[in-house]
């Protein structure tokens, strides 16, 4: 087995990435939390798995500016896909499947996008122009996505430097793919048309880890508005990767941030590997100009083959074709990504463009022993006039598909002599990527003639600015600098409770570390216990925090009270300030008086007077626990400790003395 051109993922340092000239950019897609879709009044955020009806469409490429079909367009034309859209009564109207023109843009979505454009420090445009961005894969029934730009050229901070933001777009989401087999692709339309924003960064990231971090920062910024959707698929990112001498490759639709580093690593590796293959081919005098890739129908020759895929194909009356790649001998097994060889570049193309989706869809002579008998390969070499320096690839299917397959193999081989083809790649679960489609050209944007431009007034911008939270990084820094655990701070700076927590820190002088424990860890504990802390209104929480700061209740008391509220009022739609007040009154919650405390302590000491404790510390702990239970929520641990110390001074002193002696 050959080795990857890069060190193992874990061993790669920023210097290693700098050496190969890695550059990454991001396109972060974030669904907005609106009630309805962007250009029609269907509900947003409803998903269905069943359908009421189907519509069949084909996408036909339109000619581009130069009278040529765009690369992607041409590819989609070759695939001849029958695209079926599944429609559900609850989630789509005639707009989604392109039988009704768009309704005016969703103002709620524009307002949220505007907030984010401001947070990203973009230069805002004064008038929105709806554009059509062509997608011929069928993921949008119109064949284009309606999209508009709100601002350009902003930045966000990342550690000690700035990451430039190229633009923020507001656009409609696409269909969810159900299946794609042979020439049939099926989509669900429920997600189609939901508003999402696209935040595009410049290629300012130089390691996979940094890219993931920036992605996380952008996501945090979005979430800090409380106006975006969360959950699987609500945020998806495209990652652009290039190495020195390579090409910008787009890995599309990465659903989770933690997947980003490995995907970038593998793509960087692939690009380095492909450049080396190019150099090797050129060294063998195989160039774009010299490459010739003849193919022949060799069905008859393999009639008796026992290799199952070929045998099955021939039994079904399909054809087997052989294509010769002169001078490619030995290269097909070159590792391009982890567990992925160069040969997959060909198999992917055949799968996606020739629609031969059943794998394996090709076999090649560099892995001869895995498929045909040696004598069959011998016969093939003779028929194809091939020597050991050449690679033979077999492909099977009907006449049209095998013709397309041979063309695509030939195109991919030619690209190999030039370098790295401009692809859109799909992320795979193991951190590698596969071919998705040819990268679309620049000429796929055009104005939407169905909708007039929309003026963005100054007052609209100003009110968006007013609605915005403070910068999430400022909130986070305040939490962390105040002593909150970093994990809690990261979680809470994007929480709807962030402004309340900030108020509790700055105005009520409650310690951030306690707030972190309460709102992050306790909150999760409540959820695990089946309670719903989100029932508490901000006012209710505020009252509890006020009670705490005015020493009406204690730190222990607040969590205990919340637990009571959440369990007793679990059926209510929300738990309000009044509910908190009632509970406080009912429990006569006020801090324990000195007398109360002393009496309780005396009783406690009396109750354990006959017990023999091994150390004074154990006795202290026992008493502490008993008092805390008895005066739950009404007295702070520190205060009990103080009083205990007074009462048990001799014993404590001994303990301290023992401790000191151990230390010295």
């Amino acid at each position, binding site marked *: 087995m050959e080795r990857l051109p890069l060190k193992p993922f874990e061993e790669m340092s920023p210097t290693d990435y700098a050496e190969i000239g890695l550059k990454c950019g991001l396109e972060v897609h974030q669904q907005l939390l609106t009630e309805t879709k962007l250009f029609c009044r269907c509900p947003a955020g409803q998903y269905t798995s069943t*359908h*009421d*009806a*189907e*519509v*069949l*469409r*084909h*996408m*036909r*490429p*339109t*000619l*581009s*500016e*130069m*009278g040529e079909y765009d690369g992607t*367009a041409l590819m989609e034309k070759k695939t001849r896909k029958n695209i*079926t859209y599944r429609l559900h*009564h609850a989630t789509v109207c005639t707009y989604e*499947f*392109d*039988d*009704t*023109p768009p309704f005016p843009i969703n103002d709620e979505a524009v307002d949220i996008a505007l907030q984010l454009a401001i947070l990203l420090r*973009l*230069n*805002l*445009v*004064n*008038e*929105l*122009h709806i*554009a*059509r*961005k*062509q997608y*011929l894969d069928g993921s949008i*029934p*119109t*064949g*284009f996505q309606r999209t*508009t*730009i709100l601002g*350009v*050229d902003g930045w966000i901070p990342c550690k000690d430097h700035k990451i430039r933001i*190229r*633009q923020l*777009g507001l656009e409609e989401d696409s269909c969810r793919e159900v299946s794609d087999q042979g020439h049939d692709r099926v989509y669900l339309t429920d997600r189609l048309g939901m508003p999402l924003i696209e935040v595009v960064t410049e290629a300012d990231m130089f390691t996979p880890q940094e890219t993931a971090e920036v992605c996380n920062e952008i996501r945090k910024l979005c979430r800090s508005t409380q106006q975006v959707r969360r959950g699987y698929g609500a945020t998806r990112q495209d990652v652009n990767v290039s190495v020195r001498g390579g090409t910008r490759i787009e890995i599309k639709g990465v659903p989770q941030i933690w997947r980003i580093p490995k995907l970038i690593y593998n793509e960087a590796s692939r690009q380095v590997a492909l450049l080396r293959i190019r150099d090797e081919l050129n060294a063998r005098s195989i160039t774009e100009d010299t490459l010739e890739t003849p193919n022949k129908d060799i069905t008859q020759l393999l009639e008796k083959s026992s290799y199952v895929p070929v045998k099955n194909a021939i039994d079904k009356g399909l054809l087997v074709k052989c294509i010769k790649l002169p001078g490619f001998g030995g290269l097909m097994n070159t590792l391009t990504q982890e567990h992925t060889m160069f040969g997959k570049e060909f198999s992917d193309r055949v799968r996606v463009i020739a629609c031969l989706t059943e794998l394996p869809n090709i076999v090649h002579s560099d892995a001869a022993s895995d498929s045909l008998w040696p004598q069959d390969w011998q016969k093939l070499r003779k028929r194809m006039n091939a020597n050991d320096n050449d690679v033979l690839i077999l492909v099977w299917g009907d006449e049209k598909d095998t013709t397309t397959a041979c063309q695509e193999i030939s195109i991919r081989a030619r690209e190999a002599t030039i370098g790295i083809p401009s692809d859109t790649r799909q992320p795979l679960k193991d951190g590698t990527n596969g071919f998705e489609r040819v990268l679309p050209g*620049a*000429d*796929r*944007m*055009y*104005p*939407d*003639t169905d909708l*007039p*431009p929309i*003026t963005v007034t100054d007052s609209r911008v100003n009110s968006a600015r007013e609605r915005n939270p403070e910068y999430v990084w400022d909130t986070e820094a305040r939490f962390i600098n105040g002593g909150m655990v970093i994990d809690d701070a990261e979680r809470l700076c994007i929480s709807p409770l962030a402004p309340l927590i900030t108020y509790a820190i700055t105005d009520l002088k409650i310690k951030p570390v306690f707030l972190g424990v309460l709102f992050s860890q306790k909150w999760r504990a409540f959820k695990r216990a089946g309670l719903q802390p989100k029932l508490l209104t901000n006012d209710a929480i505020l009252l509890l925090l006020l009670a705490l700061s005015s020493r009406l209740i204690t730190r222990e008391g607040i969590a205990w009270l919340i637990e009571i509220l959440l369990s007793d009022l679990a059926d209510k739609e929300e738990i309000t300030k009044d509910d908190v007040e009632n509970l406080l009154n009912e429990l006569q919650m006020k801090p324990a008086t000195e007398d109360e405390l002393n009496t309780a302590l005396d009783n406690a000491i009396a109750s354990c007077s006959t017990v023999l404790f091994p150390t004074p510390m154990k006795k202290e702990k026992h008493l502490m626990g008993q008092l805390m239970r008895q005066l739950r929520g009404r007295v702070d641990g520190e205060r009990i400790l103080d009083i205990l110390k007074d009462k048990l001074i001799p014993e404590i002193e001994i303990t301290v003395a023992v401790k000191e002696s151990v230390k010295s």
Partner: protein
Amino acid sequence: MTTSTSENTMNGYRGPGRTVLENYGVDVWSDVEVKTTNGQFRGIILPRSETADDKHIVLKLDTGYNIGLAAEQITEITEHGKREANYKIPEQEFPTSPDKPNIVLFGTGGTIASRLDYRTGAVIPAFSPGELYGSVPELADYCNLRTEKLFGVFSENMGPEQYIKLAKRIGEVIEEGVDGIVIGHGTDTMHHTAAILTFMVQDAPVPIIMVGSQRSSDRPSSDAALCLINAVKAAAESDIAEVLVCMFGPTSDEYCLLHRGTRVRKMHSSYRSTFRTIGDIPLGMINPHKITTFRDDYKRRRDDRDVKLNINYSDEVTILYYYPGMKPDVMEAMIEKGYKGIVIAGTGLGHVNKPTYRALQNAKDAGVHVYMTVQTLWGYAGMYVYETGRIMMGLGVVPLANMLPEVAFMKLSWAIGQTNDREEVKRIMLEIIGDEITDREPYNGYLLYQGAVPEVQEFIKTIRR
């Protein structure tokens, strides 16, 4: 619409937008850097739509997006050159073969095929055979194509002048020996044109196929290419020598229906499957591989050139859509203005209210021809059913059975174009030329199933609409 280029600079800019461009000595197609109080932007200045306000300029960014910048916020514009759009459609020679039928495609102004200018968004119609071949190469599988642009009007601007010119040219090319005719037409009034052509061009020996599209052909999901392919196939290969409308059957890309020109109507403002045969079944269906006819009673293709042209038209005919509470003065105004014919779309079986009777009497006295059709579109005018109907007939109103209101309007215009004689007009109106009135309404001629009914849901779940 195509935007003209260099000779028409400052395209669409007026007021403050124009002033700011002039102040900085820049123009449409200037590649510029614009400083504004909101920051800096780089792009190409695009033409501005005439209907948009005059306060913004439009910039195309490098990413292909367009944005608008407020003129009053612009503090500086620097020009870095010009990048002008090029509108030429690439042409490829349309292949010809002596074995293939010769088809003429008439253009009336609807965009059959087009290419988009990506910089402006302007739709450039593709119309010459070479241009069409560039965008719909499949056409060459069926025929040798000749194209002729007769006029360039939107569907709603079609009128007598266009009908007459179109009918004459159809007659001429038939005599020249073409094997089929295709007419590209905007969809809004396609059924009006289909009706009048049925009356003006009778006994044509070849198919006359009208076609359009509901989604313009610059869109990847357009129905235009499939409609055009099917229409050309119908003109080249079918044996139906009638005026037909060829448009999508279902909204799915599956097949087109062939509708008789007198029984077809646009029934939805935006759906692809908008054209429906009303009160009857369509003549057939067609896809790029197959033509299927549903009935046998159609006129067959012939080798002779004996087409009968009857090109007459009066523009002194109107249509009156009755509404409850209508006052007689509406119709009286029509009479007063000199209209010679009125087609009423009445309620139910063909009714108007009692006050209107007075106007009907006046119409009769003034020699105005009044005909009754039904608003329900489906069904027959049944004026014997109620006493009121009989009264109206006594006032000279002639019921037109199940003739569609628009068809009746076109036919009356044609009839009065020929004569003003009361009996003669009536004879022409009731003489059936192309199924504008049918004797029988088949049981499956009225199918408007309602969603949510279980068996209908079952049907649309399994059959692609």
